[in-house]
């Protein structure tokens, strides 16, 4: 069993539990122990884009210090946490002036040796780079054969590419390869890397609804049966807000939106109560039952 420090973040502990529980259980069955960091604090939720804001780097720095005491990797799953922690680590590693300013705010963590070598990784990077998608195919218990999944590439995991150093956001493949590894059929669609409207839902809900609807329409047009995401905010916009889409447009057909880890859970035959489908607004159960996957 490999053990990594794991940072679930606030959404995964509350509103996006389905993303979290599946992750821990599924990874356990693949031989990985995700150890939740003790007494973690918020990742900051938003990476500070203004150059003169330093205080917002303190929280991520604290998390990075904590993780570094256990391992040289820190596993995240929520796209916002991934984005903030990965970019913060890059800034703190490369910009000594900022690092100093941040450390001025810290007490017990303010050590001489900044954990420069700590890598903030996304859970899917374990699946891809450590286990390998080919091996994953060997390890799953149930193939998602016949399930047409449209993988959605959220903004925060991929952009800005120079800071995230993840995958080219103009032609991302990682989730498609993941779906294929699980035996499903990955459907490429035009809007796969367009923004869902994100937090504009708070202030201009009609604008973000439009953004999300375009994404679902685009996936539907090429024959997708469900969407895949690993971002709680995308999930909210694309799943929960289908309620409004149905009201707004008579011909709108709802489509289930899976969390990355839910699909992994199905393929690894986790018990149904751990998959957290009750949190999905559009229930994937009818689709899964029809395909004999549950």
């Amino acid at each position, binding site marked *: 069993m490999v053990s990594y420090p794991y940072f679930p973040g606030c959404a995964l502990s509350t509103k996006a539990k389905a993303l979290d529980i599946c992750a821990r259980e599924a990874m356990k069955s693949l031989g990985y122990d995700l150890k939740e960091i003790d007494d973690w604090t918020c990742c900051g939720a938003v990476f500070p884009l203004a150059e003169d804001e330093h205080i917002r780097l303190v929280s991520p720095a604290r998390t990075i210090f904590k993780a570094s005491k256990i391992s040289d990797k820190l596993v995240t799953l929520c796209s916002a946490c991934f984005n903030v922690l990965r970019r913060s680590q890059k800034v703190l590693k490369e910009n000594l002036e900022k690092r100093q300013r941040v450390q001025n705010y810290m007490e017990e963590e303010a050590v001489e040796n900044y954990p420069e070598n700590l890598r903030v990784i996304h859970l899917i990077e374990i699946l891809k780079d450590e286990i390998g998608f080919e091996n994953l195919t060997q390890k799953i218990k149930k193939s998602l054969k016949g399930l047409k999944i449209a993988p959605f590439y959220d903004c925060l995991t991929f952009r800005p590419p120079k800071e995230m150093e993840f995958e*080219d956001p*103009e*032609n991302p493949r990682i989730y498609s390869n993941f779906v294929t590894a699980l035996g499903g059929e990955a459907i490429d669609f*035009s*809007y796969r890397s367009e923004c869902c409207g994100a937090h504009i839902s708070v202030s201009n809900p009609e604008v973000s609804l439009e953004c999300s609807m375009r994404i679902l329409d*685009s996936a539907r*047009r090429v024959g997708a049966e469900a969407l895949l995401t690993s971002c709680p905010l995308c999930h909210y916009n694309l799943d929960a807000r289908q309620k409004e889409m149905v009201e707004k447009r008579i011909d709108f057909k709802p489509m289930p939106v899976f969390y990355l880890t839910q699909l992994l859970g199905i393929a690894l035959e986790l018990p149904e109560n751990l998959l957290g489908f009750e949190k999905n607004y559009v229930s994937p159960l009818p689709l899964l039952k029809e395909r004999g996957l549950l």
Partner: protein
Amino acid sequence: MKKIGLFICHCGSNIAGTIDIPEVKKFFSGYDDIEISDDYKYMCSEPGQKKLRDAIVDRQLDGVVVACCSPRMHEITFRNAAQSAGLNPYKVEIANIREQCSWVHQKEKGKATEKAIDIIKTMIEKVKRDEPLKPIEFEITKRALVIGGGIAGITAAVDIANAGYEVILVERRHSIGGKMLELSETFPTLDCAQCTLTPKTVEAGRHPKIKLMVYSEVEEVKGYIGNFDIKIRRKASFVDWNKCTGCGLCQEKCPTKTESEFDHGLGERKAIYTLSPQAVPNKPIIDKNSCRFFREGKCRVCEKVCPVQAINYEMKDEIVEEKVGAIVVATGYEILETDKIPEYGYGIYKDVIDGLQFERLNSASGPTAGEIRRPSDGKIPKEVVFIKCVGSRDPEKGIPYCSRICCMYLGKHARLYKHKVPDGQAYLFYMDIRSFGKGYEEFIQQSMEEANLLYIRGRVARIMQEGDKLVVWGVDTLSGRKVEIKADMVVLGTAVLPSKGAAELGKILRAATDEYGFFSEAHIKLKPVESMTGGIYLAGCAQSPKDIPDTVAQAGAAAAKVLSLFGQEKMIQEPLIACVDYDLCSGCGVCVVACPFDARMLDQEERISIVNEALCQGCGACVSACPNKACQLKNASPKTYIAMVDKYL
């Protein structure tokens, strides 16, 4: 006691405004070895030069110091003047009291005058020790090598050959004509590219003075201007071209089809093939990678059908050695691989094509016989989007420079498209319209008016496939709106890059290339066709992106440079180069390694190092490397310099 003349130039007020010239003149009158000390407002003027000449004759001077501007400006002027008065030109030295003194010390006039005196003192020491030297002469091999058989190479080769000199024209592909042969029609006159070019390819093919070496590459270049030794690799074509009559039977019967590079992947060709119907020479090669016999060990159909038994599967590459006196580099260009910009979906969506592919679609000899049919389903596209600056002027994803031809060729494409599909709509996304050539702006304006082209000022962010349409997300910055077009086909005006392998060829030739791989010219304005290396000249896109008129003009200029070299009886070179004090040389060979010009070698019998006078550029690398101080530069020995420094201190 020497007789040295000192001439101080005022350079208008450039020098006289800062340096107290009467003071300087006074200081040097009666100074050791100074026979005459004089000054003049403009020494470089004719009366100024006359002063110098007269003094040399009247006072029997054996050395001259001119205190004036940088030697880069007028050293040659004063040396020529001295020579015409009977003094060895290498006994003239410049004391730079302008760039190195008056210009930089304008605010401290007193000190500037002192410094000028010091500078002149040191140069007097140098002149005292200068040896009279003679320029070096050597023979010229009056044959030229032209690398690249496109319009640039062909033009240069024919021009040189018509003047009566032999030319070896080397082309990487197996027929000449280059990119221009792939084009359909050319701007701004819309005349057929093949019709314009083929008379030239035919002329090059049968010219008695041109030795055509196609399917060949330059592998090694040694020597120097006037005397290059070249090794050329003749790639195995597996067809004995001496026997082959070009009947075409083998191509017809060959069972293997593969993507045609001439049609840029839009059409097919056989495994044994000529590049195009108008190929010069009209001889096929076997493509080893697709030939069934080479891949699977059986087939041999071509061998069976060939009426003259020209097929030879055993053929090997051959190395040919040649001697030439000048080289013209005309290696042409490539276009940016558009997968560098994945948001446009090139290579993913079949109907997103590049400019050269459109040329083939539009060409009568192309895969659609000149009908505009899109690659995916052969339908006639009714909405076509043309995008400029794809990779050009894009420092992040492509190259920062402007590719110069895309504005024009996309305008031409759109217009030709409208000729063939009158009810279609063409959209052109542009950032600026650069129509700089003769008749170009008129062509673009006429296209807009007559062909009803819609020019949209903005860049495209994304192209995505929706059903059988390509949805183009652009912007019209003039109205400040996002623009969305559901197109049937998209043509990308991709950036022009140097031809593949240009930088490597640059290393072989020892001719500098820039950061992109274009050959560097010796001076951007005054020596635009000369490379940084003597005897190597540039033509066409090898130097920078160019349209056909500019390419042809430059190729003609390169040929003229070659001819002016060949017109000389002997090569003449400056004698200020390295020499060896044989008594001191131990033959250690350090200088051979240090020399960047391959000008040093060891005489194995004498066990000393010698200098190839034609190659040495007088850079001094060997001088500083030599542990015994055996290597010296002529007229710049350490003793001279120590004497100069002594005088200064």
